């Protein structure tokens, strides 16, 4: 009798080593997106926009057509692609520096146009790729390379809440914040991603999934401490939940 396969690498993900650090959230989210593309039979119609940030090499890991956007411009590049290929599934994958600092204008305006794309936002409260500088989402008091005495909100402002910000706009169809710090939340994150991709296939418009994610390397902690920090420090400030769901009209406000 053949063994039952319980777990396998998704077809949409290449069989290669990644450069992600142990305990990093990027790899987990890649896997979730890959599984969704497999389940939805969408690998062959996907156009992935990779950001500048630790996710820049996403195109080495996803076995889909992909483009590399300049830092912060992924939503504009995705807009161009989607407007040119309406039948494709366009995913803009971005970090917090990319999406909320240098690319704030592109983020807000793609959302405001209700572009029929799916944005996956990896919020790890830091600039991972460049070695741990302050991000727009860096927590109050958090020590980074450029906030060595902790983020002073009276000087550099408060961390920006992307979902809440985008939820002020009329056009977005779906906005949800999830986390990948433990297994139950990883499963929820996958559901959210699947939903956001399905919305695009159904022509519903802009869907935004914010994923609270670990960067143990630049937080200077081990993997488990990183996961705990998401739960204990990030989650109270960045509450999980569905902020907008035009589909069910029951956008259950954050608890």
């Amino acid at each position: 009798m053949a063994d039952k396969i319980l777990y396998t690498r998704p077809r949409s993900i290449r069989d290669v080593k990644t450069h992600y650090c142990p305990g990093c959230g990027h790899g987990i989210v890649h896997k979730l997106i890959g599984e969704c593309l497999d389940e939805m039979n969408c690998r062959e119609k996907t156009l992935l926009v990779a950001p500048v940030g630790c996710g820049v090499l996403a195109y080495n890991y996803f076995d889909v057509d992909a483009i590399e956007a300049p830092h912060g411009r992924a939503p504009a590049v995705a807009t161009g692609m989607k407007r040119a290929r309406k039948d494709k599934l366009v995913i803009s994958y971005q970090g917090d520096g990319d999406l909320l600092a240098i690319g704030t204008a592109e983020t807000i305006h793609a959302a405001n146009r209700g572009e029929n794309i799916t944005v996956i936002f990896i919020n790890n409260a830091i600039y991972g790729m460049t070695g741990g500088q302050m991000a727009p989402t860096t927590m109050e008091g958090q020590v980074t390379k450029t906030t060595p005495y902790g983020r002073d909100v009276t000087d550099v402002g408060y961390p920006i809440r992307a979902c809440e910000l985008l939820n002020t706009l009329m056009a977005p169809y779906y906005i949800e914040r999830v986390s990948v710090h433990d297994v139950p939340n990883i499963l929820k994150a996958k559901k959210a991603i699947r939903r956001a991709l399905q919305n695009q296939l159904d022509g519903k418009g802009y869907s935004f999934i914010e994923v609270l994610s670990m960067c143990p390397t630049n937080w200077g902690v081990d993997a488990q401490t990183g996961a705990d920090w998401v739960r204990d420090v990030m989650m109270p400030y960045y509450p999980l939940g569905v902020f907008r769901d035009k589909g069910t009209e029951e956008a259950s406000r954050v608890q």
Partner: protein
Amino acid sequence: MGKRVLLKGNEAAAEAALIAGCTHYFAYPITPQNEISAYMAKRMPKLNRTFLQAESEIAACNMVYGAAATGVRAMTSSSSPGIALKQEAFSYIAGAEVPAVVINMMRGGPGLGNIAGSQGDYNMCVRGGSNGDFHNLVYAPSTVQELADLTLKAFDVAEKYRILALILGDGYLAQMSEPCVLPEPSGERHEKPWALTGAEGRDAQVIKSLRLADGVLEVHNRHLEEKYKAVEAAEVMFENFMCDDADFILVAYGTASRVCKAAVMRLREKGVKAGVFRPITLWPYPYEALSAAAAGKKKVLTVEMSLGQMLLDVQLAVRGEVPVDFLGRPGGGVPMVDEVEERVLSYGR
């Protein structure tokens, strides 16, 4: 033959892009090129094509990058300060080898400058302006007719070489109305096996400019170099206007060349033999043709609507064999026919 119509430069460029099969146009408003956007906004939806007003020039040019990467013909247009912002995408487009067409109707600078026509962006547009080792192909039309013809051609050439083709006009050309015969579609199309259309029935492919592994970028840069050499060998364009028997050669492009031609006609009436050498491509620059045209002449006079930017290329072409003089008007000023004529007369016979 196409229809003969009276069109503003901006409108002629827009219509030519449509004739060329431009299906996606993205832009952010800026004077003196707004009629291009207005024209596209009106016409493109009727043709079932895409017009989108972007949130910035940065976004507009990145939209062109994204759309063109999927294989469609895409364009953006702007004027000087907006082109400065598009430079980011120019560099990525060059590195990733995506064909794109951009129009720059230059205005006075630096900074916000003014909205009059100018030629102050030569350095930014011809010599680079963004990071890395790359070239854009730069066309410099001098009439509305040529603007239309070159805009059409730009789409074909951009596709042929997977390069960014830039139309470098100015505010005067943009705003001036002239009769123009609309160009016929060339029908030229190039296969785009590299286009991102989904990995269906083939391996997944990537469009990118990052090449981290040891030596890989250098190999890519060499590949670009080969491509640029092919462009230099095949795409140089210039006009030789009465240079052959001339004693004095005026070198000018775009609007400034029109002034020079008028001056040459007057000078010739006075028995002074002058001619105009007009580069039509600014990159690749017609170094050899200019060198040949200038050989044995008494003087070369470069005339620009700037403080002297193309001047360096003229000097490179002439290599000190003939004295090179300069007459320029920056900030929206246009050299007058009288000024040019007087300068040449001052050289004596």
